[in-house]
């Protein structure tokens, strides 16, 4: 069967749909190899303690327990993490948070596993612990990692632009506030999972739910003391990721287990509770803003102090802080700025990558401050933004040069002309009894890719098979966003083939090529660019070979279409299988390495912040609008309508584009309203989906998505990254709507019903 062609810009159905909807697609959690053993770990009971001794005498020899392993069984460095390799696979001298893995057990079944984990006795010497990042920076605070010169400061720095703080002296209006931002748990439905075994040739093969197969392989080699080429990592479709699988979760433990399983395969699959305890979160933090403008509404100065709690280990805390700092002035031209940032170790659970990567925290604060400042100078909130946002060629307040497509003005204009904005007063005034309404907006941006110091490279590979079909070797994992099905659309466009002429392989370090992580709004941008060129090279080879075979004199007279090559003037054709037969296996494979462009504009950030990823070159932009209604009796907020206008360049596939916008907006609503991940003295209090409240189908409205299609000339077919910009604005847009309804801003989120009710009571008492 030949399906329709796959032109860019149409809603080609995702090729992963049928296998997923039939329950046949195998995720990492779905593998139960023959004769496998379960692996699981005993985790720390203390947030900070020295390990004085481990008593395994009651466990070794238990029927059904095959191996019990500690750090002493690890031959390598026993450290994982990027860029800081500070996290042990199994804790050695001490534990740094409640959840640190200490002992790894391999058992025949889960019942024996539970018994074994229960019988492990670990003798701890409890150490003083620190749970607040400001406390952790104070002189005399307990130090987590003694080898670090900066004590508990993982990374710190400043960005200065213009005259910094002096500029506030000439501002006509200034607003200042401090925002408390919560943890957010990724809560992907597929908890951390994988299988591992050592094959007959001694290669450690790991199939895992991971966003980073290539990086995992390098980290595992270092941590476990193996040559890189003796490790193979396979990344099937993920059951969600959102940044929580940007790096090693169970892979180190799985690898260690497989090295001690007497050749049997091993399987790990964390429970929801264990996932909540031991997985990374969005960094909680405090963001202190001061923003000043002139009386005509021109923004003049911004200062911002960001303190992020990275927990016990660095994870991606450094780059998250750098991104937070880079986005701290939003999409505004502000001539004078001072942004200071601190990412700090504490004995809390580890924070790391999460969709938005630092930008949601700062934009949550900035976009509420912008509303407050507009109110103060009695200027329309949208006009105030329009007056100050960047155009192409401008610098943001953080000195970030908008050298590429910059569509924030059209985003704001689309909101301005939409009925939700035009009729805001009428809608608010129509609130029923015991209801209070407000309309909020927020605008912002999100950088694409890794920044200037880490090569953002993808290596695409595509093969013409002997039967005339094509095989795409995806190099970047697909955690659900559809980047790999989009590969079919990109290659289909270049090669003129319908979707069913392609086989799509998921990343496998044994046969695809290193292509970086599924993260940073860079998956389709970077890999798509590489694939587009790889497919173009293959197309030229095919057409040239068709000429060799007598179909025509010049390649431009030939048309490549599904399964064949046509000669345009004569109408003759050759099946692709025949052309493939005349090509050597090497000729039939095309690969191309694409490196994303970086910013070369001089900037004022310190070297640590620059090394962590500041600044970016290509940005997506958005403006969101939320119509909210508060129940005055319960404090509950309902988001009645939601509009998301996005500039992520040209839309390659409207359906996949909407999937990102709708899903991201709703995940952002969870961050804004319900997702209250609670940690007290290092102890996670929200351990399941009954206490950590995710948005359900009943809690959210339909999302209206309007694209602004700028053409990003560096992106494949004019696109740029979309996955993250969508989550940056729900919190401030909803908070601004809530502030209208309540008559005051609440600086602590999420905006739970309790918090709103308390605010209303306080206001009535005044």
């Amino acid at each position, binding site marked *: 069967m030949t399906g329709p062609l796959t032109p860019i810009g149409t809603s080609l159905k995702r090729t992963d749909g049928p296998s997923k909807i039939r*329950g046949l697609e*195998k995720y990492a959690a779905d593998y*139960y190899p023959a004769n496998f053993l379960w692996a699981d770990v005993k985790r720390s009971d203390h947030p900070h303690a020295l390990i004085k001794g481990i008593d395994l005498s009651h466990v070794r020899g238990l029927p059904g327990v095959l191996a019990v392993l500690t750090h002493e069984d690890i031959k390598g460095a026993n450290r994982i993490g990027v860029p800081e390799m500070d996290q042990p696979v199994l804790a050695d001298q001490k534990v740094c948070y409640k959840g640190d893995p200490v002992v790894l057990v391999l058992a025949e079944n889960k019942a024996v596993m539970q018994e074994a984990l229960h019988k492990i006795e670990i003798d701890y010497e409890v150490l003083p612990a620190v749970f607040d990042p400001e406390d952790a920076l104070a002189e005399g605070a307990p130090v987590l990692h003694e080898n670090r010169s900066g004590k508990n400061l993982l990374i710190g720095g400043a960005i200065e632009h213009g005259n910094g703080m002096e500029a506030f002296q000439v501002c006509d209006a200034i607003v200042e506030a401090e925002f408390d931002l919560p943890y957010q748990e990724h809560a992907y*439905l597929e908890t951390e999972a994988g299988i591992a075994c050592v094959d007959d040739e001694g290669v450690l093969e790991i199939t895992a739910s991971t966003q980073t197969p290539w990086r995992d392989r390098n980290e595992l080699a270092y941590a476990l003391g193996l040559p890189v080429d003796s490790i193979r990592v396979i990344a099937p479709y993920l059951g*969600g990721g959102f940044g929580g699988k940007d790096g090693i979760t169970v892979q180190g433990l799985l690898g260690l287990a497989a090295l001690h399983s007497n050749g049997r395969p091993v399987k790990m699959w964390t429970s929801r509770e264990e996932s909540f305890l031991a997985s990374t979160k969005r960094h909680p933090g405090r963001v202190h803003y001061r923003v000043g403008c002139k009386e005509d509404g021109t923004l003049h100065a911004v200062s911002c102090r960001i303190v992020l709690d990275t927990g016990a280990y660095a994870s991606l805390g450094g780059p998250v802080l750098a991104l937070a700092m880079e986005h701290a002035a939003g999409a505004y031209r502000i001539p004078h700025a001072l942004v200071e940032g601190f990412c700090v170790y504490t004995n809390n659970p580890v924070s790391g990558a999460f969709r938005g990567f630092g930008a949601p925290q700062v934009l949550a604060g900035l976009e509420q401050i912008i509303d407050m400042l507009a109110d103060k100078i009695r200027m329309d909130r949208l006009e105030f933004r329009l007056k100050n946002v960047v155009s192409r060629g401008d610098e943001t307040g953080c000195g970030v040069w908008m050298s590429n497509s910059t569509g924030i003005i059209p985003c704001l204009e689309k909101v301005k002309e939409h009925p939700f904005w035009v009729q805001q007063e009428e809608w608010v005034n129509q609130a029923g009894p015991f209801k209070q309404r407000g309309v909020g907006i927020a605008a912002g941006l999100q950088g694409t890719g890794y920044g200037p110091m880490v090569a953002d490279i993808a290596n695409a590979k595509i093969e013409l098979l002997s039967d005339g079909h094509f095989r795409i070797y995806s190099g970047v994992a697909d955690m659900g966003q559809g980047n790999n099905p989009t590969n079919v659309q990109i290659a289909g466009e270049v090669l003129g083939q319908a979707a069913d002429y392609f086989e799509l392989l998921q990343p496998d370090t044994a046969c695809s090529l290193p292509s970086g992580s599924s993260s940073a709004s860079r998956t389709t941008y970077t890999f798509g660019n590489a694939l587009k060129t790889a497919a173009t090279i293959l197309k030229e080879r095919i057409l040239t070979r068709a000429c060799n075979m007598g179909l025509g004199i010049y390649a431009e007279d030939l048309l490549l279409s599904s399964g064949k090559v046509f000669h345009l003037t004569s109408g003759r054709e050759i099946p692709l299988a025949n052309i493939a037969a005349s090509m050597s296996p090497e000729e039939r494979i095309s690969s191309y390495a694409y490196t994303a462009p970086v910013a070369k504009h001089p900037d004022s950030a310190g070297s640590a912040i620059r090394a962590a990823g500041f600044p970016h070159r290509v940005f997506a932009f958005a403006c969101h609008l939320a119509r909210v209604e508060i129940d005055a009796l319960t404090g509950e907020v309902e988001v009645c309508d939601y509009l998301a206008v996005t500039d992520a360049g040209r839309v390659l596939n409207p359906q*996949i584009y909407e*999937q990102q916008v709708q*899903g991201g907006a*709703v995940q952002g609503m969870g961050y804004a309203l319900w997702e209250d991940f609670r940690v007290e003295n290092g102890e996670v209090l929200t351990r399941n989906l009954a206490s950590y409240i995710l948005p359900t189908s*009943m809690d959210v409205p339909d999302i209206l998505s309007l694209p602004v299609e700028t053409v990003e000339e560096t992106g494949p077919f004019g696109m740029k990254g979309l996955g993250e910009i969508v989550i940056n604005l729900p919190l401030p847009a909803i908070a601004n709507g809530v502030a209208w309804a309540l008559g005051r801003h609440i600086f602590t989120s999420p905006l739970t019903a309790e918090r709103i009710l308390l605010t209303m009571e306080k206001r009535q008492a005044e």
Partner: protein
Amino acid sequence: MIIHFTLNGENKNLDCAPDCRVVDLLREELGHTGTKEACGSGECGACTILVDGISKLSCLMLAAQLEGHAVTTIEGMSKGEELHPIQKSFVEKGAVQCGFCSPGMVMATADLLQRNPSPDRKEIREALSGNLCRCTGYQKIIDAVESAAAEMRDDA
């Protein structure tokens, strides 16, 4: 203990531990990994199956409870390559992203459309509120259920 039930129309007589959860029986013993597990405590709906046509959470059921009943899992919804109208419309409407919630969503939808062949969007949202999705924001799932309901009414 020996239990007898039908799985997607096929008779099964299995010897299993009385405390074996149905989700484990399906996934580990029978290789039906289309039924997912995402919380193990009845909070997410990913493990939804049909027992005598009614949606049940297989992580909260023990194998013995299947005795004499008819079980349908996601693998039993399509006829070979031919998708059930609900599955077809999930694919067409873009309701599948990571796909880990999708089998449970399809089973919950099957239950809904048997009870109510013409649900409106609000009724669909209510019926699926026990099934969590972290990718889609639910909108395209609601679109898919609306469209499947219309198609199944036309076919009936």
